[in-house]
Protein backbone atom coordinates (compact mmCIF):
# COMPACT_ATOMS: atom_id res chain seq x y z
CA UNK A 1 0.00 0.00 0.00
CA UNK A 2 1.53 3.32 -1.01
CA UNK A 3 2.00 6.05 1.52
CA UNK A 4 -0.68 8.25 0.05
CA UNK A 5 -3.35 5.71 0.85
CA UNK A 6 -2.32 4.47 4.24
CA UNK A 7 -4.74 5.43 6.96
CA UNK A 8 -4.30 7.72 9.93
CA UNK A 9 -5.51 6.78 13.40
CA UNK A 10 -7.83 3.81 13.66
CA UNK A 11 -9.99 5.82 16.09
CA UNK A 12 -9.12 9.45 15.51
CA UNK A 13 -10.71 10.74 18.70
CA UNK A 14 -9.46 8.14 21.15
CA UNK A 15 -6.06 7.54 19.55
CA UNK A 16 -5.30 11.26 19.37
CA UNK A 17 -6.25 11.67 23.02
CA UNK A 18 -4.11 8.73 24.05
CA UNK A 19 -1.13 9.95 22.04
CA UNK A 20 -1.55 13.43 23.44
CA UNK A 21 -1.53 12.14 27.03
CA UNK A 22 1.73 10.38 26.27
CA UNK A 23 3.28 13.53 24.82
CA UNK A 24 1.95 15.59 27.74
CA UNK A 25 3.45 13.14 30.22
CA UNK A 26 6.69 13.08 28.26
CA UNK A 27 6.95 16.90 28.44
CA UNK A 28 5.97 16.85 32.10
CA UNK A 29 8.52 14.15 32.94
CA UNK A 30 11.47 14.66 30.59
CA UNK A 31 13.32 11.57 29.54
CA UNK A 32 10.56 9.13 30.50
CA UNK A 33 9.60 6.80 27.66
CA UNK A 34 6.10 6.30 26.32
CA UNK A 35 4.77 3.89 23.71
CA UNK A 36 2.24 5.02 21.09
CA UNK A 37 -0.24 2.93 19.15
CA UNK A 38 -2.95 3.46 16.61
CA UNK A 39 -1.13 4.12 13.37
CA UNK A 40 1.34 2.56 10.95
CA UNK A 41 3.59 5.32 9.76
CA UNK A 42 4.35 6.14 6.15
CA UNK A 43 7.98 5.52 5.22
CA UNK A 44 10.41 6.86 6.40
CA UNK A 45 8.62 8.15 9.50
CA UNK A 46 8.45 5.99 12.59
CA UNK A 47 5.08 5.21 14.14
CA UNK A 48 5.52 7.57 17.07
CA UNK A 49 6.39 10.53 14.81
CA UNK A 50 3.40 9.87 12.59
CA UNK A 51 1.12 9.64 15.61
CA UNK A 52 2.42 12.93 16.98
CA UNK A 53 1.80 14.69 13.69
CA UNK A 54 -1.75 13.34 13.52
CA UNK A 55 -2.34 14.45 17.09
CA UNK A 56 -0.92 17.94 17.02
CA UNK A 57 -0.65 19.20 13.43
CA UNK A 58 -3.47 20.67 11.38
CA UNK A 59 -4.17 23.48 8.93
CA UNK A 60 -3.26 26.05 11.59
CA UNK A 61 0.25 24.71 12.25
CA UNK A 62 2.99 25.65 9.78
CA UNK A 63 5.23 22.63 9.37
CA UNK A 64 8.75 22.12 8.05
CA UNK A 65 9.40 18.60 6.81
CA UNK A 66 12.92 17.21 6.50
CA UNK A 67 13.60 16.72 2.76
CA UNK A 68 14.84 13.24 3.65
CA UNK A 69 11.26 12.45 4.69
CA UNK A 70 9.67 13.80 1.52
CA UNK A 71 8.12 10.41 0.80
CA UNK A 72 5.74 10.98 3.71
CA UNK A 73 4.74 14.45 2.58
CA UNK A 74 1.55 13.50 0.74
CA UNK A 75 0.37 11.42 3.69
CA UNK A 76 1.05 14.28 6.10
CA UNK A 77 -0.80 16.80 3.97
CA UNK A 78 -3.75 14.48 3.48
CA UNK A 79 -4.17 13.65 7.16
CA UNK A 80 -3.25 16.95 8.78
CA UNK A 81 -3.58 19.72 6.20
CA UNK A 82 -0.51 21.33 7.76
CA UNK A 83 0.84 24.10 5.51
CA UNK A 84 4.55 23.97 4.69
CA UNK A 85 6.90 26.79 5.63
CA UNK A 86 10.60 27.46 5.85
CA UNK A 87 12.07 26.15 9.08
CA UNK A 88 12.44 29.62 10.56
CA UNK A 89 8.66 30.12 10.58
CA UNK A 90 7.62 26.61 11.45
CA UNK A 91 5.58 25.71 14.51
CA UNK A 92 6.49 22.04 14.05
CA UNK A 93 9.73 20.76 12.60
CA UNK A 94 9.65 17.10 11.56
CA UNK A 95 13.28 16.04 11.27
CA UNK A 96 15.26 12.86 10.71
CA UNK A 97 18.47 14.46 11.99
CA UNK A 98 18.92 17.29 14.43
CA UNK A 99 18.36 20.59 12.60
CA UNK A 100 20.18 23.79 13.42
CA UNK A 101 18.19 24.93 16.44
CA UNK A 102 19.43 28.49 16.13
CA UNK A 103 17.62 28.73 12.79
CA UNK A 104 14.25 27.97 14.36
CA UNK A 105 11.74 30.19 16.11
CA UNK A 106 12.64 30.56 19.79
CA UNK A 107 9.68 32.73 20.74
CA UNK A 108 9.86 36.25 22.17
CA UNK A 109 10.21 37.68 25.67
CA UNK A 110 6.47 38.25 25.87
CA UNK A 111 5.45 35.18 23.87
CA UNK A 112 7.97 32.41 24.58
CA UNK A 113 5.23 29.87 23.74
CA UNK A 114 5.39 30.75 20.05
CA UNK A 115 8.65 28.85 19.61
CA UNK A 116 9.01 25.76 17.46
CA UNK A 117 8.58 22.17 18.58
CA UNK A 118 11.06 19.80 16.97
CA UNK A 119 9.90 16.24 16.39
CA UNK A 120 13.16 14.37 15.91
CA UNK A 121 13.41 10.80 14.79
CA UNK A 122 16.37 8.92 16.23
CA UNK A 123 17.65 5.36 16.00
CA UNK A 124 16.94 4.36 19.60
CA UNK A 125 15.69 5.69 22.91
CA UNK A 126 16.88 2.71 24.91
CA UNK A 127 20.50 2.39 23.82
CA UNK A 128 23.21 4.79 22.77
CA UNK A 129 24.90 7.82 24.20
CA UNK A 130 23.97 8.46 27.84
CA UNK A 131 22.90 11.88 29.11
CA UNK A 132 21.83 13.24 32.47
CA UNK A 133 18.71 15.41 32.53
CA UNK A 134 17.84 17.82 35.30
CA UNK A 135 15.02 20.29 35.80
CA UNK A 136 11.24 20.69 36.24
CA UNK A 137 9.49 17.34 36.02
CA UNK A 138 12.39 15.44 37.52
CA UNK A 139 12.58 14.76 41.23
CA UNK A 140 16.24 13.93 40.83
CA UNK A 141 18.57 13.90 37.81
CA UNK A 142 17.63 11.24 35.29
CA UNK A 143 19.90 9.25 32.97
CA UNK A 144 18.67 8.59 29.46
CA UNK A 145 20.17 6.76 26.51
CA UNK A 146 19.65 8.13 23.03
CA UNK A 147 21.19 6.85 19.82
CA UNK A 148 21.12 9.31 16.96
CA UNK A 149 22.09 12.71 18.34
CA UNK A 150 25.18 14.60 17.17
CA UNK A 151 28.31 14.29 19.34
CA UNK A 152 28.05 17.93 20.46
CA UNK A 153 24.38 17.64 21.42
CA UNK A 154 25.01 18.60 25.02
CA UNK A 155 26.56 21.91 23.95
CA UNK A 156 23.80 22.49 21.40
CA UNK A 157 21.07 21.80 23.90
CA UNK A 158 22.63 23.92 26.62
CA UNK A 159 22.77 26.81 24.13
CA UNK A 160 19.01 26.40 23.78
CA UNK A 161 18.42 25.87 27.50
CA UNK A 162 20.26 29.02 28.45
CA UNK A 163 17.71 31.06 26.47
CA UNK A 164 14.97 30.00 28.95
CA UNK A 165 12.12 30.94 28.98
CA UNK A 166 12.69 31.23 25.24
CA UNK A 167 13.92 28.25 23.25
CA UNK A 168 12.66 25.29 21.26
CA UNK A 169 11.15 22.13 22.71
CA UNK A 170 12.14 18.68 21.52
CA UNK A 171 10.18 15.47 21.15
CA UNK A 172 12.32 12.43 20.34
CA UNK A 173 10.88 9.39 18.56
CA UNK A 174 12.14 5.91 17.77
CA UNK A 175 9.86 3.13 16.54
CA UNK A 176 6.69 3.49 18.57
CA UNK A 177 8.39 5.20 21.50
CA UNK A 178 8.75 8.84 22.37
CA UNK A 179 10.30 11.03 25.02
CA UNK A 180 10.59 14.78 25.37
CA UNK A 181 13.05 17.53 26.30
CA UNK A 182 11.28 20.76 27.15
CA UNK A 183 13.49 23.84 27.02
CA UNK A 184 13.34 23.99 30.82
CA UNK A 185 15.50 20.93 31.22
CA UNK A 186 19.31 20.99 31.29
CA UNK A 187 21.52 18.20 30.04
CA UNK A 188 25.04 16.91 30.58
CA UNK A 189 27.02 13.91 29.48
CA UNK A 190 26.60 10.97 31.81
Amino acid sequence: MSNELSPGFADSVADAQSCFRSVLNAMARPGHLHAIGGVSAPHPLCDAAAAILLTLADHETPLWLDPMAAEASVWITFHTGAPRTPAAQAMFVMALSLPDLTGLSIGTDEMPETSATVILQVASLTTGQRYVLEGPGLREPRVVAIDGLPPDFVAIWQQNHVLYPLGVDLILCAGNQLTALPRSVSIKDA
Partner: protein
Amino acid sequence: MKGYNFAYLDEQTKRMIRRGLLKAVAIPGHQVPFGSREMPLPYGWGTGGIQVTASILGSDDVLKVIDQGADDTTNAVSIRRFFARTAGVATTTATAEATVIQTRHRIPEKQLREDQIIVYQVPQPEPLFRLESSRVETKRMHGLSDYGLMHVKLYEDISRFGQISISYDYPVMVNERYLMSPSPIPAFDNPKMDMMPALQLFGAGREKRIYAIPPWTRVKSLDFDDHPFRTINASHPCGLCGATDSYLDEVVVDNHGGRLFVCSDTDHCAERRAAGHVGADGFREAAE
Protein backbone atom coordinates in the same frame (compact mmCIF):
# COMPACT_ATOMS: atom_id res chain seq x y z
CA MET B 1 -24.43 12.31 24.08
CA LYS B 2 -25.94 12.43 20.64
CA GLY B 3 -24.68 15.00 18.21
CA TYR B 4 -21.67 16.06 20.25
CA ASN B 5 -18.06 14.96 20.08
CA PHE B 6 -16.45 13.11 22.99
CA ALA B 7 -16.13 15.60 25.87
CA TYR B 8 -18.06 18.20 23.86
CA LEU B 9 -15.16 20.03 22.22
CA ASP B 10 -14.46 19.44 18.52
CA GLU B 11 -11.10 17.88 17.65
CA GLN B 12 -9.67 21.08 16.21
CA THR B 13 -10.37 22.92 19.44
CA LYS B 14 -8.84 20.08 21.44
CA ARG B 15 -5.71 20.21 19.27
CA MET B 16 -5.41 23.95 19.78
CA ILE B 17 -5.68 23.54 23.55
CA ARG B 18 -3.39 20.53 23.58
CA ARG B 19 -0.67 22.46 21.77
CA GLY B 20 -1.07 25.25 24.30
CA LEU B 21 -0.79 22.80 27.21
CA LEU B 22 2.46 21.35 25.87
CA LYS B 23 4.04 24.79 25.63
CA ALA B 24 2.69 25.67 29.06
CA VAL B 25 4.35 22.61 30.57
CA ALA B 26 7.65 23.56 28.88
CA ILE B 27 7.48 27.06 30.43
CA PRO B 28 6.26 26.52 34.01
CA GLY B 29 4.09 29.34 35.32
CA HIS B 30 3.90 31.28 32.06
CA GLN B 31 0.40 32.21 30.86
CA VAL B 32 -0.22 30.87 27.35
CA PRO B 33 -3.09 32.59 25.50
CA PHE B 34 -5.61 30.23 23.90
CA GLY B 35 -8.74 30.56 21.79
CA SER B 36 -11.20 29.84 24.59
CA ARG B 37 -14.55 28.72 23.20
CA GLU B 38 -18.00 29.66 24.35
CA MET B 39 -19.12 26.73 26.50
CA PRO B 40 -22.57 25.79 27.73
CA LEU B 41 -21.58 27.00 31.20
CA PRO B 42 -21.00 30.69 31.88
CA TYR B 43 -17.60 32.36 31.87
CA GLY B 44 -16.39 32.63 35.42
CA TRP B 45 -17.96 29.29 36.30
CA GLY B 46 -15.11 27.02 35.28
CA THR B 47 -15.08 27.09 31.48
CA GLY B 48 -11.27 27.21 31.44
CA GLY B 49 -10.90 24.23 33.70
CA ILE B 50 -13.59 22.44 31.70
CA GLN B 51 -11.82 23.07 28.39
CA VAL B 52 -8.53 21.81 29.81
CA THR B 53 -10.17 18.71 31.27
CA ALA B 54 -12.10 18.09 28.03
CA SER B 55 -8.85 18.26 26.08
CA ILE B 56 -6.99 15.76 28.22
CA LEU B 57 -9.78 13.38 29.21
CA GLY B 58 -9.93 9.82 27.86
CA SER B 59 -12.52 7.12 28.28
CA ASP B 60 -10.34 5.28 30.77
CA ASP B 61 -9.93 8.25 33.09
CA VAL B 62 -11.67 8.56 36.45
CA LEU B 63 -12.77 12.13 37.11
CA LYS B 64 -13.26 13.91 40.43
CA VAL B 65 -14.68 17.44 40.49
CA ILE B 66 -14.58 19.58 43.62
CA ASP B 67 -15.48 23.14 44.50
CA GLN B 68 -14.39 24.60 47.86
CA GLY B 69 -13.00 21.13 48.56
CA ALA B 70 -16.40 19.47 48.37
CA ASP B 71 -17.76 17.13 45.72
CA ASP B 72 -21.33 18.09 46.41
CA THR B 73 -21.35 21.88 46.01
CA THR B 74 -23.76 22.74 43.20
CA ASN B 75 -21.24 23.84 40.61
CA ALA B 76 -19.07 20.77 41.15
CA VAL B 77 -22.18 18.66 40.66
CA SER B 78 -23.03 20.56 37.50
CA ILE B 79 -19.57 20.12 36.01
CA ARG B 80 -19.31 16.46 36.93
CA ARG B 81 -22.68 15.92 35.24
CA PHE B 82 -21.44 17.75 32.17
CA PHE B 83 -18.57 15.31 31.77
CA ALA B 84 -20.66 12.29 32.61
CA ARG B 85 -23.04 13.34 29.81
CA THR B 86 -20.52 14.40 27.18
CA ALA B 87 -17.71 11.91 27.85
CA GLY B 88 -19.30 9.05 29.70
CA VAL B 89 -16.25 8.84 31.96
CA ALA B 90 -16.31 7.21 35.32
CA THR B 91 -16.53 9.76 38.12
CA THR B 92 -15.56 9.49 41.75
CA THR B 93 -15.55 11.45 44.99
CA ALA B 94 -12.50 9.56 46.28
CA THR B 95 -9.28 11.50 45.65
CA ALA B 96 -7.25 8.29 45.67
CA GLU B 97 -9.31 6.80 42.84
CA ALA B 98 -9.19 9.77 40.50
CA THR B 99 -6.82 10.11 37.57
CA VAL B 100 -7.99 13.66 36.78
CA ILE B 101 -9.17 16.08 39.47
CA GLN B 102 -10.81 19.34 38.46
CA THR B 103 -10.88 21.79 41.31
CA ARG B 104 -12.03 25.23 42.25
CA HIS B 105 -10.27 26.98 45.12
CA ARG B 106 -8.71 23.99 46.94
CA ILE B 107 -6.04 21.37 46.68
CA PRO B 108 -7.06 18.03 48.22
CA GLU B 109 -5.48 17.22 51.58
CA LYS B 110 -4.30 13.80 50.40
CA GLN B 111 -0.99 14.06 48.61
CA LEU B 112 -1.47 13.53 44.88
CA ARG B 113 0.44 10.89 42.97
CA GLU B 114 2.57 10.91 39.87
CA ASP B 115 -0.20 9.27 37.85
CA GLN B 116 -2.69 12.04 38.64
CA ILE B 117 -3.41 15.38 36.99
CA ILE B 118 -5.02 18.26 38.84
CA VAL B 119 -6.83 20.91 36.77
CA TYR B 120 -7.47 24.24 38.48
CA GLN B 121 -10.30 26.61 37.55
CA VAL B 122 -8.81 30.10 37.41
CA PRO B 123 -10.91 33.29 37.44
CA GLN B 124 -8.02 35.70 37.03
CA PRO B 125 -4.71 34.32 35.76
CA GLU B 126 -2.79 37.59 36.04
CA PRO B 127 -1.12 37.79 39.48
CA LEU B 128 -0.48 41.52 39.05
CA PHE B 129 -4.01 42.49 38.04
CA ARG B 130 -4.87 44.44 41.16
CA LEU B 131 -1.67 46.40 40.91
CA GLU B 132 -1.71 47.04 37.15
CA SER B 133 -4.98 46.89 35.23
CA SER B 134 -3.43 46.94 31.76
CA ARG B 135 -2.63 43.51 30.36
CA VAL B 136 -0.33 45.12 27.84
CA GLU B 137 1.73 46.34 30.80
CA THR B 138 1.66 43.12 32.81
CA LYS B 139 2.68 41.13 29.74
CA ARG B 140 5.71 43.38 29.43
CA MET B 141 6.54 42.88 33.11
CA HIS B 142 6.44 39.10 32.81
CA GLY B 143 8.57 39.28 29.68
CA LEU B 144 11.23 41.28 31.49
CA SER B 145 10.82 39.46 34.82
CA ASP B 146 10.02 42.88 36.29
CA TYR B 147 8.01 42.10 39.42
CA GLY B 148 8.93 45.16 41.44
CA LEU B 149 5.29 46.18 41.70
CA MET B 150 4.45 43.05 43.67
CA HIS B 151 7.45 43.31 45.97
CA VAL B 152 6.49 46.90 46.77
CA LYS B 153 2.93 45.86 47.58
CA LEU B 154 4.14 43.16 49.96
CA TYR B 155 6.55 45.57 51.60
CA GLU B 156 3.75 48.10 52.05
CA ASP B 157 1.63 45.38 53.69
CA ILE B 158 4.36 44.79 56.22
CA SER B 159 4.68 48.51 56.92
CA ARG B 160 0.95 48.85 57.40
CA PHE B 161 -0.07 45.57 59.06
CA GLY B 162 3.17 44.13 60.33
CA GLN B 163 2.68 41.14 58.03
CA ILE B 164 1.77 40.24 54.45
CA SER B 165 -2.01 40.54 54.30
CA ILE B 166 -2.77 38.18 51.42
CA SER B 167 -4.70 35.13 52.58
CA TYR B 168 -5.73 33.47 49.30
CA ASP B 169 -4.54 33.58 45.70
CA TYR B 170 -1.15 34.18 47.30
CA PRO B 171 1.37 34.86 44.52
CA VAL B 172 4.11 32.35 43.85
CA MET B 173 7.33 32.22 41.86
CA VAL B 174 7.50 29.15 39.66
CA ASN B 175 10.77 27.56 38.60
CA GLU B 176 12.45 30.75 39.78
CA ARG B 177 11.22 32.66 36.76
CA TYR B 178 7.50 33.40 36.51
CA LEU B 179 5.24 35.10 39.00
CA MET B 180 2.02 33.14 38.98
CA SER B 181 -1.44 33.18 40.45
CA PRO B 182 -2.10 29.79 42.06
CA SER B 183 -5.84 30.52 41.60
CA PRO B 184 -7.87 31.52 44.67
CA ILE B 185 -6.76 28.63 46.82
CA PRO B 186 -6.16 29.56 50.45
CA ALA B 187 -2.53 30.35 51.29
CA PHE B 188 -2.76 27.22 53.45
CA ASP B 189 -2.67 25.14 50.25
CA ASN B 190 0.32 26.87 48.63
CA PRO B 191 2.96 24.55 50.12
CA LYS B 192 1.27 21.57 48.45
CA MET B 193 2.14 23.02 45.03
CA ASP B 194 5.88 22.95 45.68
CA MET B 195 7.48 19.76 44.30
CA MET B 196 4.07 18.15 43.85
CA PRO B 197 4.31 14.66 42.34
CA ALA B 198 1.29 15.32 40.09
CA LEU B 199 1.03 17.52 37.00
CA GLN B 200 -0.81 20.80 37.67
CA LEU B 201 -2.75 22.44 34.84
CA PHE B 202 -4.57 25.77 35.06
CA GLY B 203 -7.38 27.00 32.81
CA ALA B 204 -8.86 30.51 32.68
CA GLY B 205 -11.68 30.49 30.11
CA ARG B 206 -12.88 34.06 30.27
CA GLU B 207 -9.38 35.54 30.33
CA LYS B 208 -8.28 32.92 27.76
CA ARG B 209 -5.09 31.70 29.39
CA ILE B 210 -3.64 28.30 30.14
CA TYR B 211 -0.65 27.62 32.36
CA ALA B 212 1.04 24.64 33.96
CA ILE B 213 3.44 23.41 36.60
CA PRO B 214 5.21 20.14 35.80
CA PRO B 215 5.60 17.63 38.61
CA TRP B 216 8.54 18.13 40.98
CA THR B 217 8.86 21.83 40.25
CA ARG B 218 9.83 24.55 42.70
CA VAL B 219 6.91 26.77 43.64
CA LYS B 220 7.79 29.42 46.19
CA SER B 221 5.30 31.72 47.89
CA LEU B 222 6.63 35.28 47.90
CA ASP B 223 8.00 36.52 51.16
CA PHE B 224 10.91 38.32 52.79
CA ASP B 225 13.69 36.80 54.87
CA ASP B 226 12.47 38.56 58.00
CA HIS B 227 8.80 37.94 57.20
CA PRO B 228 8.64 34.37 55.96
CA PHE B 229 5.49 32.94 54.37
CA ARG B 230 3.04 31.55 56.92
CA THR B 231 -0.13 29.59 56.35
CA ILE B 232 -3.44 30.58 57.88
CA ASN B 233 -6.02 28.16 59.24
CA ALA B 234 -8.57 28.05 62.01
CA SER B 235 -6.89 26.76 65.16
CA HIS B 236 -9.43 24.05 65.89
CA PRO B 237 -9.61 20.40 65.04
CA CYS B 238 -12.35 19.26 62.71
CA GLY B 239 -15.54 18.82 64.69
CA LEU B 240 -16.50 15.76 62.66
CA CYS B 241 -13.28 13.79 62.32
CA GLY B 242 -10.79 15.47 64.66
CA ALA B 243 -8.22 16.28 61.97
CA THR B 244 -5.78 18.96 63.08
CA ASP B 245 -3.92 19.45 59.81
CA SER B 246 -6.67 19.97 57.25
CA TYR B 247 -8.16 23.24 56.05
CA LEU B 248 -11.36 23.98 57.91
CA ASP B 249 -14.70 25.53 56.96
CA GLU B 250 -16.47 27.54 59.62
CA VAL B 251 -20.14 26.60 59.91
CA VAL B 252 -22.62 28.78 61.77
CA VAL B 253 -24.80 26.29 63.65
CA ASP B 254 -27.21 28.44 65.65
CA ASN B 255 -28.35 31.97 66.34
CA HIS B 256 -26.15 32.35 69.40
CA GLY B 257 -22.77 32.57 67.68
CA GLY B 258 -22.29 28.81 67.79
CA ARG B 259 -19.58 27.69 65.45
CA LEU B 260 -18.45 24.35 64.16
CA PHE B 261 -15.24 23.84 62.21
CA VAL B 262 -15.24 21.00 59.67
CA CYS B 263 -12.82 19.80 57.01
CA SER B 264 -13.32 21.63 53.75
CA ASP B 265 -12.09 18.50 51.93
CA THR B 266 -15.18 16.33 52.26
CA ASP B 267 -13.50 13.20 50.92
CA HIS B 268 -10.65 13.54 53.40
CA CYS B 269 -13.10 13.95 56.25
CA ALA B 270 -15.30 11.05 55.15
CA GLU B 271 -12.27 8.80 54.79
CA ARG B 272 -11.12 9.66 58.31
CA ARG B 273 -14.55 9.08 59.80
CA ALA B 274 -14.84 5.76 57.97
CA ALA B 275 -11.52 4.81 59.56
CA GLY B 276 -13.01 5.50 62.99
CA HIS B 277 -11.80 9.01 63.75
CA VAL B 278 -14.31 11.11 65.63
CA GLY B 279 -14.21 14.83 66.22
CA ALA B 280 -13.48 16.17 69.69
CA ASP B 281 -16.95 17.74 69.79
CA GLY B 282 -18.39 14.25 69.51
CA PHE B 283 -20.68 15.21 66.62
CA ARG B 284 -21.52 12.50 64.17
CA GLU B 285 -22.83 13.07 60.73
CA ALA B 286 -26.50 12.12 60.58
CA ALA B 287 -27.34 9.39 58.09
CA GLU B 288 -28.53 10.79 54.76
